[in-house]
């Protein structure tokens, strides 16, 4: 059995590249992501820098995972629609997107997800506020946070859109 360790850590959705950066730093230090859970990550001891890590939001699609496998990409796991992958550095650089348009589409997928969960929380919050339950405020707070996250993602998307006026 190879040595493993589990770390609990919270990242904010609009800073998912910070999360990715951290996972790559761990890999650089010889700890490669091997499974993910809600706010927790399990790492296995590997050679330092043996793997690169990437993550993306997309609906689960076995055809896509098979396609990635053909490219030497290993699927690590997912939380809801956040997928985590790794690829051996010896197999070459690891990017998921190579043009601005697909990065914009990725932001769209994140935005849609945040909007859907945010709306659900808003409706449940309102229903609970007028009903007998006193806990409606929790959902309303969640909805507010999710809408804030949506705004941040929208901002990142706008940056990309500005770029796409002149470039691909």
């Amino acid at each position, binding site marked *: 059995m190879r040595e493993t360790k589990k770390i609990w850590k919270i990242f904010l959705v609009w800073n998912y590249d910070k999360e990715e950066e951290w996972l790559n730093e761990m890999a650089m230090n010889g700890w490669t992501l091997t499974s993910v859970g809600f706010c927790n990550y399990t790492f296995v001891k590997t050679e330092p820098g043996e793997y690169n890590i990437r993550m993306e939001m*997309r609906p689960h699609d076995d055809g*896509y995972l098979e*396609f990635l496998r*053909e490219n030497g990409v290993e699927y690590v796991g997912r939380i809801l629609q956040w997928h985590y992958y790794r690829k051996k550095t010896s197999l070459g650089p690891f990017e*998921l*997107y*190579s043009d601005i348009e697909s990065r914009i*589409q*990725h932001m769209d997928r994140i935005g849609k997800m945040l909007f859907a969960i945010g709306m659900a929380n808003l409706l449940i919050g309102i229903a609970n506020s007028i009903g007998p339950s006193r806990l409606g405020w929790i959902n309303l707070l969640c909805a507010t946070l999710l809408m804030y996250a949506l705004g941040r993602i929208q901002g990142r998307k706008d940056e990309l859109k500005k770029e796409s006026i002149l470039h*691909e």
Partner: protein
Amino acid sequence: MDNNYALTESTYYIMLALYNPAHGYGIMQQVEEMSGGRVRLAPGTLYGALTALTGKGWIVQLPMDEGSRKKEYKLTDKGREILMKEIERLRELVTNGDMIVGNTDIGGK
């Protein structure tokens, strides 16, 4: 509408690579080779483009060989027509560039 918009660089190269049947990884290799290593298609981008191109009917997925798990794709007649028009458009861009700025061919006259 299909005829008035320029193709993106990725789309153009993917369609060019599918002039003969190829699978995903084959497309990436061909495109990288054709562009002298400049254009490296990333899998997420390529998969999205293949899905969109199939939806438009510009490429088709070929029936899978038994025992093979790799999906192969090929340009359709409609796709070939779009590609020819695009080459024509690109030629116009280069011709005008050459005319105004001078011949930009490497080692040009």
